């Protein structure tokens, strides 16, 4: 007997089914031919005749493999119930069917899931941070009634965070529309030894403490998690009554309930612990940090000099902010009437805006980018569903012809989209939750301030809503179209396709527009961060060790100063130290200048004065532009020489030559200018202020020591710490690499974050767009196989067909590009209004974004277009 199996296998070489199905088909046909051969022999045919005759069973039919493959490969059809099975059981059937359809198309399922996961994931990640900054209610009762006072300078319009006590009294006395003012201050300890401290494995550590007025928590409407917070009856217990932050209660006392209501001892200090603040509580002040301990502050006395940072008031219910503002201004004017020195106008500020000054605009921009990405993902999903809808169209037609209702036809597709949306959203939330901490480490804290950030149930709900909306909204359209097909026409394999091509191409245009805008936006947002973080700071923290000395309590001010000098000398003797100096308010310490220089007319402070010891300039890399910096000889010979920053020189002397000139600090100290250095930034998100540097008065004992080392060697910190301890026994020393401290505080210069924002979002947008273009072109090719065959048959070259398809892809890309540029023009105004120092007139970014998208689009189109050249015109025409 001939080897039928081998012959059949060869005949069906083009099947390309999965191996098991292919073997089944070959087995079955082999069996058929064997049966036929035996039959013929039994009827008396000669073996060679029988073999020829049997083989004729498989002759002709040039498209046999393809025909078999197309049927065996297609998706399973849903059982069409003509019985009364409806309601829930029918829904279950459809669910099972949707599940089966997804399992039968792993390529589609994985791509769709990936699209949803990535797009929703980007949204949940950004939202997890943005939520705290933008949306989550502040942890205060009726937070929209709260306001933070600042003082606006009458001339410059700039707001200062310090409100004079005199204003607070006036407001307490004369403003019925707002509550009494609540205040938050750093604690003035009588001596460093009195500071509360705890023992940690790394040695004693101080407990960050703030003081509030007794009405403070009441104004915020915060309730204690344990015990109680301060109230008016606590008067007289200032500095003694205290509450703990929730985190500190857990950390220091292990969440011990028995300490609440009892006396606690922290170092040498003892407090009556009234209660514990709720978890997640943050102070409505960017300066407050996250103190572990909050003690009671005495009420603002009428004679108290100075002012307080970020005092808070609650505006009475039903009173407009404008009216409250007018009252506050009027109250302040009673204080300033007849006084020359006018601190400015008190202003009621929105709490959220003050808490997240940098974070809000940046987060808003990132969120906008994320929403764009979501749109892109949805457009992609729509494309994929369209292509898939077309593939299943013949099935749909058959089922329609058999009398399935259109609603019933749509439901499995709808359920399929629902399953994808749900699955993708859950994956996205899971992925975000797992990677969030790693992600957050890449984000500069300046973006979210003091807020608690994290993935919570709100984010989860929003992600689910996004996934489901995206999948169903865009999944239902193709499903509806599929159900709207002309069944008869489709069974005859004609028509019903053009309409979907018509949806596909606008989708490409939409995707291209969004991608261009997102990529441009990512570049702009990235650069906004860069400009906030990378504006030349004017100094160098590289290889600089920062030393803070917490002095023993029994040292006088002069002794403290002598101790600092001794440590500076000791460090200067180290061979691995290039330069060492000290200054009062070093950059990025959050400290205001040590003193100020008033304008010639005795009015406002115009230049900040920083106390600096010689060597400071060299240690932090401040080169003199003109003249010289302070030198050790100045200590004895010229204690009143000063070095100005360039902007201070301009402020004080205009275009005159400042070297040798004199200026007055307005308090009787007269300086002679010996040099000019560059400007230095003091805060990450604020403009540089004009500064003057001068030798500290002898009793000034609060200076930060900075030492520039030759290498950032690992042992240096502990050696310097030991030096400092030896030199000043009993001091509480903090020694760290300055740049680490700055990075931790401000996230300044975090190139990894730029990379994350820029390349992450842009690459995702690009990838999604490419995928969308790819599927539309693949779809075009598939839908027009016959046309391509005909074109090939009448002499078109394969190359010209690829060209034709590419041109068809480029048209929507071009339209999308134009729309994208319009979108950018519109978005630019938004960005300029929102972002600090953003450079949106950036032709390079614009060109880069456009070229990238067009190239990616063309590449994505080329790949499926090449398939057109593989069409065999003979096969196509024979099928007609």
């Amino acid at each position: 007997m001939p080897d039928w199996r081998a012959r059949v296998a060869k005949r069906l070489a083009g099947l390309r089914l999965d191996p098991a199905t292919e073997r089944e088909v070959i087995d079955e046909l082999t069996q058929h031919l064997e049966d036929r051969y035996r039959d013929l022999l039994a009827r008396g045919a000669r073996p060679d005749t029988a073999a020829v005759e049997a083989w004729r069973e498989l002759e002709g039919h040039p498209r046999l493999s393809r025909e078999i493959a197309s049927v065996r490969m297609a998706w399973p059809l849903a059982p069409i119930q003509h019985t009364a099975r409806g309601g829930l059981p029918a829904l279950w059937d459809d669910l099972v069917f949707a599940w089966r359809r997804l399992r039968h198309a792993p390529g589609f399922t994985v791509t769709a899931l990936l699209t949803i996961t990535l797009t929703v994931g980007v949204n949940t990640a950004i939202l997890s941070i943005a939520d705290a900054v933008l949306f989550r209610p502040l942890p205060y009762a009726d937070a929209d009634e709260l306001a933070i006072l600042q003082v606006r300078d009458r001339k410059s319009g700039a707001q200062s965070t310090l409100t004079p006590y005199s204003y607070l009294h006036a407001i307490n006395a004369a403003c019925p529309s707002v509550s009494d003012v609540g205040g938050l201050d750093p604690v003035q300890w009588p001596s460093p030894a009195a500071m509360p401290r705890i023992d940690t494995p790394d040695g004693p550590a101080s407990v960050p403490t703030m003081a509030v007025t007794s009405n403070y928590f009441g104004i915020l409407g915060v309730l204690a998690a344990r015990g109680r917070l301060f109230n008016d009856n606590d008067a007289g217990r200032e500095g003694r009554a205290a509450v703990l932050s929730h985190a500190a209660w857990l950390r220091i006392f292990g969440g011990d309930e028995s300490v609440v209501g009892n006396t606690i001892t922290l170092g040498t200090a003892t407090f009556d612990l009234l209660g514990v603040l709720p978890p997640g509580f943050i102070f409505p002040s960017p300066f407050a940090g996250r103190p572990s301990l909050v003690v009671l502050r005495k009420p603002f006395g009428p004679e108290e000099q100075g002012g307080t940072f970020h005092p808070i008031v609650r505006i009475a219910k039903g009173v407009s902010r404008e009216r409250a503002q007018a009252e506050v201004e009027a109250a302040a004017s009673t204080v300033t009437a007849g006084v020359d020195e006018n601190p400015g106008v008190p202003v009621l500020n929105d709490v959220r805006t003050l808490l997240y000054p940098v974070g809000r605009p940046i987060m808003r921009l990132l969120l906008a980018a994320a929403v764009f990405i979501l749109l892109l993902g949805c457009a992609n999903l729509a494309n994929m569903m369209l292509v898939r809808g077309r593939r299943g169209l013949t099935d749909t037609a058959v089922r329609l012809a058999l009398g399935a209702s259109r609603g019933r036809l749509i439901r499995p597709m709808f359920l399929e989209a629902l399953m994808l949306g749900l699955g993708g959203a859950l994956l996205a939330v899971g992925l975000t939750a797992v990677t969030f901490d790693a992600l957050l480490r890449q984000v500069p804290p300046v973006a979210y301030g003091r807020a608690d950030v994290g993935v919570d149930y709100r984010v989860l709900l929003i992600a689910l809503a996004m996934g489901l909306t995206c999948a169903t909204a865009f999944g239902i359209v193709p499903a509806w179209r599929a159900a709207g097909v002309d069944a008869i026409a489709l069974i005859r394999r004609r028509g019903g396709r053009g309409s979907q091509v018509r949806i596909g191409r606008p989708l490409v245009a939409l995707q291209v527009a969004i991608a261009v805008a997102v990529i441009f936006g990512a570049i702009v947002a990235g650069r906004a961060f860069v400009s906030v973080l990378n504006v030349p700071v004017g100094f160098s923290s590289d290889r600089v060790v920062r030393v803070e000395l917490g002095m023993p309590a029994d040292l006088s001010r002069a002794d403290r100063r002598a101790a600092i000098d001794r440590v500076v000398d000791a460090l200067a003797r180290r061979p691995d130290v290039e330069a060492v100096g000290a200054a009062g308010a070093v950059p990025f310490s959050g400290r205001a200048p040590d003193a100020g220089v008033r304008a010639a007319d005795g009015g406002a402070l115009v230049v900040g004065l920083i106390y600096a010891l010689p060597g400071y300039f060299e240690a932090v890399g401040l080169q003199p532009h003109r003249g010289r910096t302070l030198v050790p000889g100045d200590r004895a010979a010229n204690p009143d020489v000063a070095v100005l920053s360039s902007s201070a020189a301009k402020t004080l002397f205009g275009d005159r030559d400042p070297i040798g000139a004199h200026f007055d600090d307005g308090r009787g100290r007269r300086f002679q200018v010996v040099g000019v250095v560059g400007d230095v930034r003091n805060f990450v998100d604020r403009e540089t202020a004009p500064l003057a540097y001068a030798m500290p008065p002898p009793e000034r004992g609060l200076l930060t020591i900075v030492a520039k080392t030759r290498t950032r060697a690992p042992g240096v910190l502990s050696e310097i710490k030991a030096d400092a301890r030896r030199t000043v026994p009993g001091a509480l020393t903090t020694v760290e690499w300055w740049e680490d401290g700055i990075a931790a505080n401000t996230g300044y210069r975090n190139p990894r974050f730029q990379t994350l924002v820029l390349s992450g979002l842009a690459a995702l947008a690009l990838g999604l767009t490419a995928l969308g273009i790819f599927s539309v072109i693949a779809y075009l090719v598939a839908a027009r196989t016959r046309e391509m065959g005909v074109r090939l048959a009448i002499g078109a070259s394969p190359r010209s067909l690829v060209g034709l398809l590419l041109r068809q892809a480029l048209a929507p890309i071009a339209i999308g590009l134009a729309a994208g540029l319009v979108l950018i023009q519109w978005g630019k105004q938004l960005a300029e209004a929102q972002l600090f120092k953003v450079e949106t007139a950036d032709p390079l970014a614009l060109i880069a974004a456009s070229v990238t998208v067009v190239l990616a689009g063309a590449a994505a189109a080329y790949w499926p277009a090449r398939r057109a050249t593989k069409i065999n015109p003979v096969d196509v025409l024979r099928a007609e």
Partner: protein
Amino acid sequence: MKKGSAELLILSAIEARPRHGYDIARRIEERSKGTVTFHAASLYPLLYRLEHRGWIAGRWTEHRGERRRRLYRLTPEGRKVLARQRSLWRAFVKAIDRAVGVEHA
């Protein structure tokens, strides 16, 4: 020949009992007295398509000493389709008969 008549032939061939492919082809040939023949190349794609539509179901069976065979049986849905197509066919034949003037006795 009327569209769908091949389907009708196959469905009726397995109405009484399940049959394998070659068996179906032979039965149709026998019952039509050699007028209608199915080659494997047209039979199997059609069988697969009917199976795909859920009208027939194929299952591999093995008998001792023989190769395994794929037996096709009618599904309940296929039975309904058969009944409908059969009545449509009768109506069609009646109409054709009337049109070409064949008189029934």
